[in-house]
């Protein structure tokens, strides 16, 4: 080995080492400020909002007459459906499906199922209690002043409107109410996280809920780091 080659090699090795070490440090600094989020998952039929929407304050009462507001939506997942008890077809069908979902999820999953009336004139807490408990003893019915209900339904893109009267001439007031038939999903932070549009399928809802919940849990994990 001649003297000139030795003198080029040592600085070259030093430089290369320096570059490698700097690159490693640069990467560590970069990745600390950019932890990375899990991929936004694909759902089967649900429309999932990876950036969920906080709900404006609302105030309703449940079928036992107790207050139910935003604070009651925390710490648990909630499935929410808007309908009315004088609905013979869509509401019983949907509540049946929601009961099937509740059964498949089981008690450990800790999801709650809410039925919000769009017909508070006829759907008193007592009327709601008899109705929701029939489909599942754990279901919660919600009612209140019409304005209070609309204050919640509108945020969630749910529409409702009183329709034609039927069986006119009878003592009881009979009318139908048209309403959105979507099932909404609220996360344990009380945010609007997803919507299931009709036609509803128990299996699709169960599968999509699992995907959405896994995504929510992993985001919470990432935020803690």
């Amino acid at each position, binding site marked *: 080995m001649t003297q000139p080659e030795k003198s080029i090699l040592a600085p070259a090795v030093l430089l290369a080492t320096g570059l490698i070490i700097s690159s490693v440090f640069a990467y560590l600094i970069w990745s600390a400020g950019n932890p990375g989020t899990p991929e936004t998952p694909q759902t089967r039929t649900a429309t999932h909002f990876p950036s969920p929407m906080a709900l404006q304050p609302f105030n309703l009462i449940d079928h036992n007459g107790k207050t139910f507001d935003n604070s009651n939506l925390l710490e648990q997942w909630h499935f929410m459906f808007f309908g009315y008890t004088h609905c*013979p077809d869509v509401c019983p069908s949907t509540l049946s499906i929601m009961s099937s979902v509740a059964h498949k999820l089981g008690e450990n999953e800790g999801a709650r199922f809410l039925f919000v009336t769009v017909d508070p004139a006829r759907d008193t807490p007592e009327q709601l209690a008899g109705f929701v408990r*029939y489909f599942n003893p754990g279901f919660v019915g919600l009612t209140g002043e019409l304005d209070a209900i609309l204050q919640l339904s509108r945020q969630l893109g749910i529409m409702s409107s009183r329709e034609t009267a039927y*069986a006119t001439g009878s003592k009881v007031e009979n009318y139908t109410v*048209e309403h959105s*038939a979507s099932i909404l999903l609220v996360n344990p932070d009380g945010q609007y996280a997803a919507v299931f549009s009709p*036609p509803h399928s128990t299996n699709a809802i169960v599968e999509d809920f699992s995907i959405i919940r896994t995504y929510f849990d992993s985001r919470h994990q990432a935020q803690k780091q």
Partner: protein
Amino acid sequence: MTTRFILIAAACLLNTGLLFAGTRDTRSLSIEEAWIREAPPTANVMAAYLTVKNTGRNPASILSITSPAFNSIEIHRTTIINGIARMEPVNTLVIPPGNEVRFEPGGMHLMLVGPNRALRDGDEIKLSFTLDNGNSLSIMAIVRQSTIR
């Protein structure tokens, strides 16, 4: 010659008349698989589902439906368009010959209003259909519980 012609013409006309009479009787409309969805005890309205077949040669219309178990019955059609569920009354259902109409959840159904007692899974309820030819057709619908609770 003329007499024979008249007799033959009369016989033809008579047979044609009989032919039409035969296809407008109740046997051309059949109602099958009728069931009523069991409802919560506080429910004032229930739904019935069934299949109507017109096996005759003429259109047949259902004008009205009655039952001893309900105050009134109407035909309604559920539509879900852009995620919004609506129910439209169908005042007269005309079924063309050779057709079948299925009343199913999410579609056509009988809206049964004002049950006079709570109906339970297994109960049999009489439903009577008045047709446009003035005839009445009665069937029994069975109450079915269809929720996994």
